[in-house]
């Protein structure tokens, strides 16, 4: 075969095939390795859930197998209960995505494109709810807005007015979810609006369209991908959200798919297989919605929403500057100020029963720091804080690294198997975390490595559960950096790895830092996935709060929640600082 190189190659099949096969083999090693990693992280848990849906027994260690397959579990998908739960989930998902979209879209528009008063502050107001885990928000809102003992109603009654607030229903659930998922819409739409070529709007303006018509006919259609993307993301996340539904909807008998699944698993005897079957139905809903989104986007072109670093024109709001600000402040009050105040009030109040809100301020000794002392001096809290911080940082680091390697292979190479890698990476988004948590538990119990019961399994679970967000984050910035920059380093004598470390990675620093930050926040906030995996040594702050709530110790839960938010805030500031400092 070597002799052939001297001449024009004879394309004999016998010679070409082995060479091609060898090349294929060589090029498949990296994706192969990644695939193995992702398979263990993601496919195994998902596979076990699917298996469970068709099995008569939960695929616990010891009884994993293909015997006893049945379709019986799917009968519970069509019971009245699950149909009602599905309808509620759809209502809640749709309602919350539309409302979150309105809130996020409004904030994004006024901060990106208008001269509203306090624009910088409103931008922060759009992001702050990210620091409040949605279920802490839900906890606060159940304190604020329940019918009888809600602080808002008590205050109203203090003032001699009838209390009318009630969040323990579908509408309340929609409101709370929308409040805490609006930042996703805000970020995506803000990005699209800031990147949009302003010429397109100005052209419409010059060609006779008034402000409103420009908005309707040009601006909105052009940010459709961002709007659709946000809608689908929020829809998926809210439909899957367990803790908020549980806290807000649970008492009112508002059942959604995740709480239904949770209850199936929690009933006596445990109905894990049916839960798995219902989860698969939930996954199907999510997949259909995602496919719809793809089809809607495929039909049209939106190429001008590009990253050209434009300076968009700001619209003069005129006399609407103040009303717009007030609306934004209203959101800030509902999503952050009121909840934090409520938690603070509950944590400081001397008794869990609150007869009067205004009265508490005049009565001596109505407030006590006991809950805080309790929390701050508790060994459990200390350990949980350390655990949370350690797990989140390690999970965010590893998650960013893995996301980088996978995104690199998917977007920068022509290696075989890129497509499947991307799909597998995005898969956890479609699996409700409550199901994923169970799958992870089963997987890591079966796995012949001694990680179960350690913080390592938490890290693994977080890396798996947050792979989609990490992958998207890194992929977005990889796509932004021209691949010529790296190829050019290779052309100038650097090996591929050297080129990546000398050129690509430094250029991606901003993107990687923000992905890291995102994963850090998500890990700090996550409750549902670790709920199945923790042991007494490996409790996280989120678990401690849930436990206290579960044990009916709301005051301590409130105090811990506040501590929790503080830790998240500190972490985000510190890592942002560090990220910024590394920039030249």
């Amino acid at each position, binding site marked *: 075969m070597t002799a052939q190189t001297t001449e024009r190659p004879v394309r004999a099949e016998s010679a070409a095939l082995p060479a091609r096969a060898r090349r294929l083999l060589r090029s498949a090693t990296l994706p192969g390795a990644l695939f193995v990693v992702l398979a263990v992280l993601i496919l195994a848990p998902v596979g076990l859930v699917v298996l469970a849906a068709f099995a008569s027994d*939960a695929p*616990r*260690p*010891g*009884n994993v197998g293909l015997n006893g397959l049945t379709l019986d579990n799917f009968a519970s998908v069509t*019971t*009245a*209960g699950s149909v*009602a739960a599905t309808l509620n989930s759809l209502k809640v998902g749709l309602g919350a995505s539309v409302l979150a979209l309105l809130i996020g879209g409004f904030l994004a528009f006024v901060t990106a494109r208008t001269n509203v008063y306090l624009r910088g502050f409103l931008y922060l107001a759009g992001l702050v709810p990210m620091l409040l885990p949605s279920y802490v928000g839900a906890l606060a809102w*159940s*304190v604020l807005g*329940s*019918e*009888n*003992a*809600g602080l808002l109603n008590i205050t109203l009654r203090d003032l001699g007015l009838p209390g009318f607030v009630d969040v323990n229903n579908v509408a309340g659930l929609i409101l709370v979810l929308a409040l805490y998922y609006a930042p996703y819409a805000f970020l995506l739409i803000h990005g699209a609006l800031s990147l949009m070529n302003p010429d397109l709007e100005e052209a419409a303006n010059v060609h006779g369209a008034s402000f409103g018509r420009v908005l309707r006919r040009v601006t909105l259609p052009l940010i459709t991908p961002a709007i659709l993307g946000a809608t689908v993301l929020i829809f998926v996340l809210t439909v899957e959200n367990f803790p908020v539904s*549980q*806290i807000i909807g*649970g*008492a*009112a*008998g508002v*059942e959604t798919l995740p*709480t*239904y699944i*949770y*209850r*199936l*698993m*929690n*009933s*006596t*005897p*445990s109905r*894990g297989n049916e839960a798995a079957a219902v989860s698969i139905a939930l996954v199907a809903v999510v997949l259909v919605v995602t496919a719809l989104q793809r089809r809607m986007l495929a039909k049209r072109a939106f190429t001008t929403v590009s990253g050209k670093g434009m300076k968009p024109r700001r619209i003069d709001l005129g006399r609407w500057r103040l009303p717009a600000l007030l609306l934004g402040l209203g959101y800030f009050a509902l999503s952050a100020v009121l909840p934090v105040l409520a938690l603070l009030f509950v944590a400081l109040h001397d*008794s*869990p*029963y*609150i*007869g009067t809100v205004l009265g508490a301020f005049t009565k001596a000794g109505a407030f006590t720091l006991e809950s805080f002392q309790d929390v701050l001096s508790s060994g459990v809290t200390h350990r949980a804080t350390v655990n949370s911080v350690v797990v989140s940082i390690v999970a965010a680091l590893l998650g960013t690294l893995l996301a980088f390697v996978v995104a690199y292979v998917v977007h920068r190479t022509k290696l075989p198997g890129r497509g499947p890698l991307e799909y597998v990476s995005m898969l956890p988004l479609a699996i409700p975390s409550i199901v994923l948590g*169970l799958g992870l*538990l*089963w997987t890591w*119990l*079966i796995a012949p490595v001694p990680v*179960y*019961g350690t913080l390592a399994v938490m890290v693994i679970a977080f890396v798996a559960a947050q792979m989609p967000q990490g992958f998207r984050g890194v992929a977005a910035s990889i796509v932004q950096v021209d691949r010529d920059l790296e190829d050019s380093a290779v052309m100038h004598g650097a090996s591929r790895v050297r080129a990546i470390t000398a050129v690509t990675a430094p250029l991606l620093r901003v993107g990687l830092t923000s992905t890291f930050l995102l994963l850090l926040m998500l890990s700090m906030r996550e409750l549902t996935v670790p*709920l*199945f995996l923790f*042991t*007494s*040594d490996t409790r996280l702050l989120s678990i401690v709060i849930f*436990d206290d*709530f*579960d*044990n*009916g*110790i*709301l*005051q301590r839960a409130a105090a811990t929640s506040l501590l929790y938010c503080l830790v998240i805030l500190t972490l985000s500031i510190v890592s942002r600082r560090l990220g910024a400092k590394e920039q030249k």
Partner: protein
Amino acid sequence: GCGGGAAGSADATSLVVGGETIADQKLYSAAKDEGSLVFYTGGSEQSEKAVTEAFTKATGINVEIVRLAPNKLTERILAETGAKKLGADVIRTSGEDIILSLAKAGTFQKLTLPAAVTSAVGDAVKEGGLYFSGFDRVYSFAYNNAVVPKDQAPKNWADLLDPKWQGKLSIVQVGAGGSTAALTRFQIDKIGEEYLTKFAANKPRIFDSSAGQTDALARGEVSVATMPVATGIGSIADGAPITVAVPAEGAVGYPFYVGVGAQAPSPNAAKVFASWLLSKDAQKIAVQQGDYPVRKDVGTPKVGDVAFPAADSGWLYRADAKTMLAHTAEDAKRWREIFGYTG
């Protein structure tokens, strides 16, 4: 004066409580060498804390509590058992079906309890020592005394049917665990099935688990709730304005079972702890928390200043394991129909 602790015993190297040898010298010193144990429990964290802290004080052996709602706990134990990675030394949970399924899965190892203890607790030990009942928790109801004036307070089960409680009443759904199963059995068997129908007519809020309910009651979001006495007492200790009722018609008791893990990492400490749970000291703690002890020599529980009738007075309704196993599924179905609770 029962000599709580090693110091009280004549032989410094064996564990004696109230004159009963809980662990002989060999076992006890082996347990001390292990130094700590892991305790999986479905009971509430506050009550278990009181127990384990007393044990640690008495023996110097540390106990790590893993608390989970009974069903999450079951799932976890079954999974761990199957993987031969059961992290628990000692397990406590309620529900006959649960304990049976655990036993069937090979979760427990047989435990030879000290003779003195065995004779004191009688039939609480099941299946030749595979597991035993540690106490009977009482399921009664409670009300928020800040919202409900004393003269309005419900005293009997029948009082809960008063329409004035409409929308202010709550209950935990039947499938939440052994506790609610026992309550339902009691209500159907003892008070009459129409009770449930009338109760349902009062439109109670139905909580998924006792998770939110205790808090809702403490805050006054609901005024009256059926709830385990121990849970109520725990909340009261945390400052909640709750009063637990001692209804004249009686109340239901349901056993919390204890077993030693088959692969217990600290088998000796596990055995000592399990045995100690049946000692006078431990049983007294149970009494303080509102649970009926399995020993007869430590009295009956009290709430506030009201003492519960003696265990054999007929006030406490107890269904044996066989009855429970026979009725649980059917009761649950009935309950769901009555409350229009789907699932």
